[in-house]
């Protein structure tokens, strides 16, 4: 059996803070008036997790929701916002299976009822830009606890929707669809790994991977698969999408690492959306304390 690590006390939200959530939602709505668009007005019941609240200022919602890589909807940064709005995100089910004792098929609203928390994470794209995003989501460790992986489960494979009727670019074989990403099971079980269903107090915009996506803040953004329909626990490591497309440029681990350059550019620095000057990139995107132990003894230059 896979043993689930208990969350540290610092991660548990005090009751007083939990009950303040309505006030926080109200404050959030005031601060971000751009959220009140018709398709996006459903707020989510969540509690703020103060353990994941970096000093960095969150990036403006407009930047995060208008500058996206979501190749099923087009090649440019603004194509997902333009082309994803027809995606049907309800009803939506996620099939969780493979090497688990209790496979399940969960509706998105059911997952939300399992308990959603807000965590503000840094996001670093392999292309050299970054953002700070308040995600709302279910810790992946909670899903793992529910499905009980068997001893054979070594990897968790995340598969995105690939519906040519709704995603025009899936007909173009630029990548091997459906988009597939994977984590080692200890990476998936790390308390940082999140299955996000919302951001900035609301459900996810479609261009950001609605209705449910992965968020792995110490890895480059392409690891965080969007619009997930299947989560599979596997014994063997799968070939992942970008790794198949360009193995020398996109490794399986894809941990944020300023010391390992991308084939075509340096990863030493990054540009925050909304900022002009570049800033230095931190090992594991600043989450070394939480995740460096996962890679003890590994040569991170070879396992990029």
């Amino acid at each position: 059996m896979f043993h689930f690590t208990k969350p540290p006390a610092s991660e548990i939200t005090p009751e007083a803070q939990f009950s303040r959530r309505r006030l926080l939602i109200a404050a959030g709505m005031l601060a971000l008036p751009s959220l009140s668009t018709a398709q996006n007005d459903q707020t989510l019941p969540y509690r703020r997790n103060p353990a994941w609240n970096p000093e960095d200022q969150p990036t403006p919602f407009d930047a995060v929701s208008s500058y996206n890589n979501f190749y099923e909807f087009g090649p440019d940064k603004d194509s997902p916002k333009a082309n994803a709005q027809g995606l049907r995100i309800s009803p939506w089910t996620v099939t969780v299976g493979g090497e688990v004792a209790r496979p399940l098929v969960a509706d998105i609203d059911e997952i939300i009822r399992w308990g959603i928390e807000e965590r503000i994470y840094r996001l670093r794209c392999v292309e050299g830009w970054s953002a700070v995003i308040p995600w709302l989501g279910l810790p992946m460790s909670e899903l793992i606890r529910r499905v009980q992986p068997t001893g054979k489960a070594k990897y968790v494979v995340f598969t995105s929707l690939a519906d040519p009727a709704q995603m025009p670019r899936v007909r173009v074989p630029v990548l091997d669809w459906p988009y597939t990403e994977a984590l080692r099971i200890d990476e998936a079980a790390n308390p940082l790994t999140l299955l996000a269903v919302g951001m900035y107090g609301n459900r996810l915009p479609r261009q950001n991977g609605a209705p449910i996506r992965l968020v792995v803040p110490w890895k480059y953004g392409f690891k965080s698969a969007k619009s997930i329909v299947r989560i599979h626990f596997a014994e063997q490591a799968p070939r992942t999408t970008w790794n198949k497309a360009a193995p020398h440029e996109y490794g399986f681990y894809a941990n944020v690492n300023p010391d390992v350059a991308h084939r075509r550019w340096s990863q030493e620095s990054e540009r925050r959306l909304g900022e002009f000057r570049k800033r230095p990139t931190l090992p594991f995107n600043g989450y070394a304390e939480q995740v460096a132990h996962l890679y003890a003894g590994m040569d991170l230059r070879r396992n990029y």
Partner: protein
Amino acid sequence: MNQHLISTTRGLVFLASTLPMAWLAWLAGNDALGANPVETVQRYTGLWTLNFLLLTLSVSPLRALTSQHWLLRLRRMLGLFTFTYACLHLLSFVGFDHDFSAQAIARDILKRPFISIGFAAFVLLVPLALTSNAWAIRRLGGKRWQELHRSIYLIAILACLHFLWLSKITEIVPPLAYAVLTGLLLWWRVQNRKQRAMPAARTTQVQAVKFFRKRPD
């Protein structure tokens, strides 16, 4: 075309060539460069450098196809606009990416092949821009000047490689399109040179024509 009309056309082309720059300035002034303004500026100035490079290379084929020889009088201006947009492109790299730090710039040029190629293309453009005046043509002599300015073909190839190399496979179509267009413009020149050799040959004996058809150069 009469002189007056040619000067008017040149004035209009000059104004039109500043429009992309003006549009960029307007976007910047209205905070409309998107979530990653630096990237927008870098891509935009790079694309317009290529656009003007292709326009410059189109002058000779267009002139030959239409027999509108006055078109040649637009070429220097288009070439100098290529250089202007290339300067803006380089400036966005030097300033925004590296804060004008010579050491960081040098390291990036040495380490990243697509930057090395782009920088080489820029360096090769400099002598062409400096000799784009009547004095330099007189000084060098027409033949040497022309030989020097043939390096624009190499520059075009380098620019296309620079664009291809920095693009992901998911966004390969635009750089491929530019490469194909550049290829066509260069191919036309090769064909044109062969054809120009032919008529001269036709006036001689039949056997000589055959010889020229086999080895046009």
